[in-house]
């Protein structure tokens, strides 16, 4: 761990604390003392367990990147709607015109978080599923070969890298 590690550790813990408290309040919506104290105990136990497990880092609490992630999320929603339309048409066409293919996709993402986001984005988009991730190569199964031709995932790859790693878009 570097010098800033301890400082950021406290920051991430605080962020997790705020997120958990907000989540509890929004979920219960009741302000009775008993429920609030139960919430406080739950938050304390969760924080303790997270610290014990040593999972409080920029991957489990990436709230500094939230604005970028939300932008990416909206763009991904658009892609999902477009892809949904293609798969719905494929399901309902009288003559089956699918053309499934296996392709290898190279990614520019370096960190595990970015790679996971990229692989999950591909899987979330109907018509393409990530089968495996090895190093910087993803094995993708596509319902239509033309959806997965070289360069088809370039845009998503670039945006994921920008959102999860802060790489210039």
């Amino acid at each position: 761990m570097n010098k800033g590690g301890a400082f950021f550790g406290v920051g991430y813990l605080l962020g997790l604390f705020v997120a958990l408290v907000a989540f509890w309040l929004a979920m219960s919506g009741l302000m009775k003392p008993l429920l609030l104290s139960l919430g406080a105990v739950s938050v304390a136990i969760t924080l303790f367990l997270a610290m014990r497990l040593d999972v409080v880092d920029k991957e489990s609490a990436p709230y500094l990147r939230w604005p970028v992630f939300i932008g990416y999320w909206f763009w991904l929603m658009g892609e999902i709607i477009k892809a949904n339309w293609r798969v719905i048409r494929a399901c309902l066409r009288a003559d089956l015109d699918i053309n499934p293919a296996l392709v290898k996709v190279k990614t520019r993402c370096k960190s595990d978080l970015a790679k996971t986001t990229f692989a999950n984005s591909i899987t979330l988009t109907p018509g393409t599923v990530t089968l495996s991730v090895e190093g910087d190569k993803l094995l993708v199964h596509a319902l239509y070969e033309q959806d997965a031709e070289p360069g088809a995932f370039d845009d998503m790859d670039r945006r994921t890298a920008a959102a999860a790693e802060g790489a210039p878009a």
Partner: protein
Amino acid sequence: MEIWEAFLANFHAWRPWAGALLCVLGAVLVVIGTVGVVRFPDFYTRMHAASVTDTSGATSLLLGMGLMSPDLVTVFKLAAIWVFLFLTGPTATHAIANAAHVAGMQPVTGARARGDVGEREGD
């Protein structure tokens, strides 16, 4: 602006109808996904059809339920369900697909997938 104000003023009047409409749309999308699961030739292609169910189908159903819900706490809970679905859905899909891939299941590719619909290979 006037139209917008009228739109908001009648929000509670059209809310249940819009919600019901979205729920029906969601149900239709789920049925379409199921049709795809039945029609597509092999495991991997069927997975694509199933993903229609858990992306647009679930989104539409949850939006409809949100419009019909009595208070904001319920809306927030539905939103949380939606976020968790969109995080766990692809993870589960990937786990299943990866298991099939690791087990050595070969996908039917290209034109072969279009013929022999209904005849499955190897299982």
